[in-house]
């Protein structure tokens, strides 16, 4: 099977790669581009650990083909901080102890950023439903919701 040639943008950088026609975007990111921040927790779109954005839209990269990235803009957890400046969500996740093991954290950050990009002032319920596609097994979500609330408040202050 011949491979597909793909030109895309990942975290603002132009990227080209060859991938198999049946290869997921998650596998491309992890195995071909060395971006292992997105994790495979299930491979079936149920856990959100592989969350990335495609043209600003939140997706599970395990359900997207690598070939589908052609001409798109991909955003991953590796692109959330600006140089050494952490995004408010990253800072608040640390300050609020919103991670224990940390395997779900990249997916939560990508999903929470997508949420706040669309809704800068979400209610607790909106946060809970906005993050319902991401599983965390350690925290019981309490500290994650509080971190997102705190980050949203800080971002609104500008």
């Amino acid at each position: 099977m011949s491979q597909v040639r793909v030109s895309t943008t990942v975290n603002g950088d132009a990227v080209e790669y060859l991938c198999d026609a049946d290869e997921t975007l998650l596998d491309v990111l992890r195995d071909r581009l060395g971006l292992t921040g997105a994790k495979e927790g299930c491979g079936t779109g149920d856990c959100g650990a592989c969350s990335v954005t495609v043209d600003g839209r939140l997706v599970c990269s395990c359900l997207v083909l690598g070939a589908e990235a052609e001409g798109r803009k991909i955003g991953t957890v590796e692109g959330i901080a600006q140089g050494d400046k952490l995004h408010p969500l990253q800072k608040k996740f640390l300050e609020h102890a919103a991670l224990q093991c940390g395997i779900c954290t990249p997916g939560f950050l990508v999903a929470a950023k997508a949420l706040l990009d669309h809704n800068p002032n979400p209610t607790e319920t909106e946060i809970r439903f906005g993050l319902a596609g991401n599983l965390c097994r350690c925290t019981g979500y309490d500290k994650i919701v509080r971190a997102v609330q705190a980050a949203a408040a800080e971002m609104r202050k500008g």
Partner: protein
Amino acid sequence: MPLDPNLDPASHKFNVVGTRPVRPDGIDKVTGRAKFGADAVAPGMLHGAILRSPHAHARIKSIDVSKAAKLPGVKAIVTRDDFKEREPSLRDILWNVMARDKVFYDGHAVAAVAATSASIARKALKLIKVDYQVLPHVTDVDEAMKPGAPLLHDDMITAGVDPAPKKSSNVAYRHEFGRGDVEQGFKQADVIVERRFKTEATHQGYIEPHACLANVGPDGQGELWVCTQGHYMIRNTCAALLGMNVAKLRVTPSEIGGGFGGKTTVFIEPVALALSRKANRPVKLVMSREEVFRATGPTAASSMDIKIGVRKDGRITAAQADIRFTGGPFVGSLVDMGAMSAFAAYDLENSKAVGHDVVSNRPKLAAYRAPSAPMVAFGVESVLDELARKIGMDPIDFRLKNAAKEGTQSSYGPKYNRIGLIECLEAAKRHPNYTAPLGPNQGRGMAAGFWFNFGGQTAVSLNVHIDGTVALTVGTVDIGGSRASMCQIAAEELGVSYEVVRTVTADTSSLGYNDITEGSRTTFSTGMATIEAARDCIGKLCGRAAKIWGIPPEAVVWEKGYAKPAGANAGNFEPLSLADIAKQAATTGGPIAGHSEINAEGAGVSFAVHLCDAEVDKETGRALVKRYTVIQDAGKAIHPSYVEGQYQGGAAQGIGWAINEGYIYGKDGRLQNPGFLDYRVPVCSDLPMIDTVIVEVPNPGHPYGVRGVGETSIVPPLAAVANAISAAAGVRLTEIPMSPPVVLKAIESNGRAK
């Protein structure tokens, strides 16, 4: 190490302990840089895949790998023939890692392939031909105990029974704990409640599937990168299974994406090493989520009869439990821990708990957070709830009347030292959650929980660097922030700031043996070893100061990060900071380090009390948790945020267990829901905020009074949620998970009964 005699944790002013600093591994984990099990690669790496049984129970007549071996790109295939039986005590583990004569459950490993790509490895699996003779199977614990049930092992004679039974059965072991005379006790009771309870198996549900990267060379030396709770256990077990030299196998733990007890044994690691040895190439093996559900170690499934009698004044006169657990095809359902913990929260004259360890065609269980205690607490605390109602007593007052305290002889044996159950119950009673008004269709439940906590073998090394910073090397895997807590403890002892210390987890070749991160032991045991190593180091720092000053070492004291002359007689010298002394290490005797190698004892038992408000839709049977509060004794909280996190996480897992989660087996004995879509763990929108109260009743067995906190938080939720749902639904729930059909059935049968 006992509680420091001059340290009353209630009034002692700690500098670093009790604060909430950012964890040292934090930045890596919010930027995607942290390396977990599946994130490693090696030059020339092959990809492994495992062929698994589609049958619940079958004899393997033959395995033909010849076609798979010819597929281009396939570099090694292993089957039962590649795993010799070397060590009788590891037989069950070996048989679980790779099936021998029989497969015992849907998902049991039968063969494995290493190939140049993952897709070639998967294709090769399809070319392996296994000839099975399918056998009758059994997955339900009560069915497995019946005479005439399909037998898993023809030679299994129940142990723990005298005289030994003549016929083989699926009952591997019978355990009994207790004291007094329950028959006499029940005669003294005014009210007796007896009920049968049943719980399905659940999975720890860690988000990171098992993953490892093995590299074994022809010289017998090996490397293994693996996500595990215990890399020394992995090393010792794999070396014994594969006939390798322990010293030649170096195991490095990755960051771990959750474990909760499920990563305390071997599954794929010996297979990856065997493939690597055979192919003479590095082999990466990563489980899929489906494999995690089918072929790792969920909890036992349980069935139990609980009978408790009380006098009208609220004193329990007798308590009895008959508990049946099945945890897969081998002995070791951990029912003994269930029986031991059953009545451990109460001061009872007459108690008896019998546990039956039953084998069945399910995957071999692993620990899950306070293993066995949640299910048994579900039964016991449900019956206590019903008794309190029957005698018209407040459920917390009822428990206070019977609560274990310092000096109580526990139902499983030892006499308690200082414990905090009464303090937790009193805090629960004071909490606003306990008296807040309830809405329509809502009910409130409470339950208490107990867990033993463990200590164990621990080694740490503390090195002072040339610039006065400190490297703390530990051998316990950090599963929820323990590196932060260890930095805090070392900084507290040395009198330096948190930022001065960096804690790293060593590989197995860089530090002495450490037991697994399990049993809520890490902050307790590694913390204790860190204190000891820091004090050892302080002794050496004082010695160096003495040398610099030309006075005897006994004339130097350590205060707030400085060596000082002990008094006027010692001489008049400017205090030397840790950094001052570190700078002169080379000229005063060489490197400065402290060490500790201990087998930590004195892990104090711990108790929790949970409050739950649930709402039940009586038309659909759907139950929702609306409010939840965890009150638990931490002894002394080192990093309160991570203590709260343990409380909240255990509660959330318990709520999932109570309402949503459970293994569903088809008539064919195959698991029907091996994925997160159908095995539904709680998501963010399922839960409310989870309130926490940290009670601190110091553990007399630790210098700061620390008790483990990781596990106790999952013990009460099954019962607390069941008591709340029972109150809301107006009918006693006795089956878990309390999914909508189960709740609806209970409501409807109660309606018919009336």
